[in-house]
């Protein structure tokens, strides 16, 4: 981000994770409303941000359609698999397929050290209805409504909620939700690197790991959204070598 010319300010409040960085961005906006335009990368936050981000990210499913037609001649995939933290890349990858009921949408959350380990970020499995950052959605929280600190090896999935769009896809059953652990994600990343020479982002590696858990037919057209590069995760990957 610095190489691209951005000033990076670390969040030093609360649990110092993505949720706290989001708090700090909102606070900065509150403090400088005259000269600041708030933007957010994920499909969370107050309306209209989740909707705006989903529409902007929808270029992903548009691209999937175009590439699929070019490579297979078919218009629709049978499966679209994407990782979900707040859920921006998944929202974009699902967007133009939501109304196409034949397309199976698979959202993969971060199980962290395991769903029952107390160190997880799988919101649909561990959360309940709540309000955070200005939207009502599913949220990992205590019985008293205090937001729980999540855990995932990937910073981008280390968020205690999911966007309201995904909460709806979950509740209506339009998308199926599963999760990959830290270890499964790292293993999938290493595998992709060996087979294809591509280092995926740790986030995207959660979606890749899902492939091992599903059964496919030879005729299936499966799309895994490789939403990010692993440059930023090299320090983490090196620990596993």
């Amino acid at each position, binding site marked *: 981000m610095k190489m691209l010319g951005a000033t990076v300010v670390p969040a030093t*409040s609360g649990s110092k994770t993505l949720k706290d960085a989001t*708090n700090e961005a909102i606070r900065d906006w509150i*403090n400088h409303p005259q000269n600041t335009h708030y933007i957010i990368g994920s499909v969370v936050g107050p309306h209209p941000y989740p909707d705006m981000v989903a529409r902007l990210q929808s270029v992903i499913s548009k691209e999937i359609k175009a590439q699929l037609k070019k490579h297979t001649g078919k218009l629709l995939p049978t499966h679209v698999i994407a990782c979900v933290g707040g859920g921006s890349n998944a929202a974009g990858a699902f967007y133009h397929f939501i109304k196409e009921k034949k397309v199976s949408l698979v959202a993969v959350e971060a199980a962290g050290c395991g769903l029952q380990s107390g160190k997880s970020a799988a919101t649909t499995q561990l959360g309940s*209805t709540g309000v955070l950052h200005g939207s009502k959605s599913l949220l990992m929280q205590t019985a*008293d409504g205090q*937001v729980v600190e999540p855990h995932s090896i990937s910073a981008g999935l280390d968020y205690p909620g999911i966007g309201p769009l995904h909460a709806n896809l979950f509740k209506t059953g339009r998308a199926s939700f599963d999760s990959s652990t830290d270890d499964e994600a790292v293993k999938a990343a290493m595998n992709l690197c060996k087979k294809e020479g591509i280092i995926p982002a740790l986030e995207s590696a959660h979606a890749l790991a899902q492939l091992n858990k599903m059964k496919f037919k030879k005729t299936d057209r499966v799309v895994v959204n490789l939403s990010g590069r692993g440059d930023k995760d090299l320090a983490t990957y090196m620990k596993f070598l």
Partner: protein
Amino acid sequence: MMNVLDAVFAEKKKNVLNIYCTAGFPLMESTTEVMLALQDAGADIIELGIPYSDPVADGPIIQQSNMQALQNGITLTKIFEQLTQIKNRLHIPVVLMGYINPVLQYGMENFCKDAAACGVSGIILPDLPMYEFEKYYASIFKKYKLNCIFLISPSTSKERMKKADALSGGFLYAVSSSTTTGTQNSSENKINYFKKLAAAKFKNPLLIGFGIQDKTGFEEACQYASGAIIGSAFIQHISTAKNVQKAVKEFVHTIRPIEQ
């Protein structure tokens, strides 16, 4: 019977002092001690903060007090217990300020019922949108005779200010500048904004809060409104005090000397 909050403004048109304190801070059991000391020292209204893990409208001082109080083990249930303990001794109005999520988990109806039962007069929920209040909760507030108090700021449109005033009861909360709590605001546009507020014909008395730190700030705000709210400066003052009661009184007396 007149709501105690309305009674304060009926009796006293000017210089109403509302002090914000965080429940369960600095110690779990401090809530009652701090509130009674505030009453003794001459505060007119107490705004009691319900601690939350993600208080986005608050600056570092109140954030820290929220975290400390949560570590102390404070919960809404505990706050209502504490308020019940002092119900017969506390005669000045109490307004609860918090964020919507803990309230939703407690249940809005239960929350209003229990708040009213322990003598609370009003509720401030900065992240509760006005239309949601109107649509889902206004009838519950009415049932338990609780005022909902909305916030306006320099960036609030005239229309929205009117709406906030119409939906609020007890008083209207004017944020002194576009900031989180505890931020010292530049006085440039502030006075113009205060003048605009003073000229607006709100149905509710106006209290100005956020960034009011001392006697000078309090008196300045009081020239344009019925009174002011002090939070961060007070929390800062009592956070490291050995004798909390004494620190509370000391602070209030710096704002409002005893002879007054």
